[in-house]
């Protein structure tokens, strides 16, 4: 089959298909995990795993990504299932936001991407800031009413929680695959919308000379560069396992702006808005994105001034 001639529409389709071919395996992985969680994890497993005190539970949830690594596309179906298994909402949100950053694959990719540009400092800053942000968000969510956060059918799922921890092995596998199938199609719909919009932005807007000029203008001043790169991360919707390579190549931008890019991107971007909407109410998604924007920006500025003196204390001038 001879592929059609390149065209502006072809650019969109080409970019769209490339993200789908890259992302769909992770989406499927997430939904398979979700299916097997549903079939094999007893309802009270989460109670046993997490500390009883809500504060400690949230603090632990922020680190779960280290043991259950999933990237941001895969995490959404997984937390939906964990919510059903009794994971408290605040912990679920903290895990959902932190797992795409606080996980071994991302640590390794960030270290190798920033080779020659303070890799250890960048990686530690990224993990630390992601942890602080997600835990703060978790505390805020724990004060909210569940029925104002979760979509009605997800809420209903939680209330009608039914454990499949009994039943034969075959029945459980059958059940797991059925759940995986349903979750895959469910999540893929939001994924498609997000990727489609991202592809249009990527091939028609970000590459325009005017947009590139604007990006160049931002790079000099951190007051503009930090929100600028966060906006870029939002539009580009990169995968958290590879965004460090893009961040490392953004010539002219300060390390703080790139750090904001690396922390904000995996928690909030165009495709994630739609994926989050499969679980959360629209008003909550909007507030979550806004809250993350403010929090990451503020913490980045704080870290910009706090980090160099701290590093000096540890081992002489480094930056």
């Amino acid at each position, binding site marked *: 089959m001879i592929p059609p001639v*390149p065209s502006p529409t072809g650019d969109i389709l080409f970019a769209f298909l490339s993200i789908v071919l890259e992302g769909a395996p992770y989406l499927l992985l997430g939904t398979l995990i979700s299916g097997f969680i549903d079939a094999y994890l007893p309802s009270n497993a989460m109670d046993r795993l997490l500390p009883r005190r809500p504060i400690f539970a949230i603090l632990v949830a922020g680190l779960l990504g280290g043991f259950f690594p999933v990237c941001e596309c895969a995490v959404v179906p997984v937390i939906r299932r964990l919510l059903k298994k009794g994971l408290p909402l*605040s912990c679920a949100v903290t895990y959902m936001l932190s797992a795409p950053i606080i996980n071994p694959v991302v640590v390794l990719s960030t270290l190798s991407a920033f*080779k020659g540009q303070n890799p250890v400092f960048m990686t530690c800053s990224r993990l630390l800031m992601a942890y602080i942000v997600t835990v703060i968000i978790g505390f805020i969510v724990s004060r909210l009413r569940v029925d104002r956060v979760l979509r009605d059918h997800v809420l209903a*799922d939680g209330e009608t929680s039914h454990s499949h921890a009994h039943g034969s092995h075959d029945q459980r596998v059958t059940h797991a695959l059925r759940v995986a199938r349903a979750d895959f199609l469910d999540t893929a719909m939001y994924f498609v919308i997000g990727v489609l919009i991202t592809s249009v932005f990527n091939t028609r807007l970000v590459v325009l000379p005017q947009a590139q000029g604007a990006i160049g203008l931002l790079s000099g001043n951190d007051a503009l560069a930090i929100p600028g790169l966060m906006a870029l991360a939002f539009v580009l919707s990169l995968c958290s396992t590879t965004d460090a390579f893009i961040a490392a190549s953004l010539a002219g931008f300060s390390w703080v702006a790139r750090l904001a890019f690396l922390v904000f991107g995996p928690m909030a971007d165009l495709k994630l808005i739609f994926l989050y909407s499969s679980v959360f109410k629209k008003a909550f998604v909007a507030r979550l994105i806004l809250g993350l924007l403010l929090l990451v920006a503020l913490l980045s500025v704080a870290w910009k001034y706090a980090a160099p003196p701290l590093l000096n204390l540890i081992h002489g001038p480094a930056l």
Partner: protein
Amino acid sequence: MAPPSDHDHHGHRCSHDHDHDHETAHSDHVHGPECGHGPGHSHGATGSPAAAFPWSRVAPCFLLLLWGGVMVYYFASGRVIHYLTGFGGFRLQTLICGLLLCVLAAFELLVRPVPAGSESESDAEECRGCGGDHDHSHDHSHDHGHGGSSGGWVAKALTFLILAVPLSAAALYSPDRYSDQFFINKANAVTSSNTGALGGGGVDLAKRAAKARPLPGAADGTAAAAGGSTAFTVDELERLSGGRTPEGNIPLQLVELFYMPAQTRDVQEVVSTQVIETTGQAIKDKQDPTKMRLFRLMMTCCAADARPISIPVEFTEAPPSWREMGWYKVTGTVEYREINGEQSTVFKASALTPGKPPRQQMMY
């Protein structure tokens, strides 16, 4: 009644009136004759005439086969090379995912009709067995439209279209490459930095050399500086570049030259002693339009993250005339110089010949 906090919200811990109301309501619904399936959903013998054709099963099946089929086709036809890098197993993941989706579709088509009826019976028995402290509408809500539990046929049709149309359009009409206009825009985009990031890892000559050599850590720059006999050699460069061209030049990818400043000193030195040949598109230098840069797009993992990389080309004699965005092969030597505060590879070209666009539009 206090608003339920999230920690004690879920059914198994609940003691709120609020939650009990819900459970009662649900159990009424669920233990009805349809066993959790809404009206219009046929399975086994309980199908109503209106639902004689099992859309609820055929549509997901079709979608899974479509997604799986597209992924397997793009892998099997080799077209995937234009979309994903060869590093990190991205292409293999696509194949595995495609096959698994086909398996899920087959499972949906073949396995489900039989157990659907019998399973709900056995589940019902189990439910009686375990005291009824939970009810039994598990997951059937998923079959009721993906847009939400209230989804009617409009929502179902919309879901179906969103899942089917963009992917089909892309699979049928994707040109496997970007348009020239996209390339021109990218070529003039903010230049990438060449410090640090070594793409997917395959461009790292020192790393490749270290892997190819029996002695571990031999590519380490400090070992070479200390006068070790394990330093990078011309022979290794020849082998890693895939052998000399008929003219006796070392063919290197533009990306390998671009990242040369990040290589160890011994690699840099060996490369600078050889006549190198590389291919790319010619573009004007933004700061000095009389000067030429050689440009290519490089993807990190998929085509959507393609970013522009370019190196300056200087001519030993008067620069020949060249066409903007034309493909050229340059022959000459490389040197390393600081440009705008960053170490950069500069190509000192002795010859410029029009070249053919490579089969793969992008590098990785």
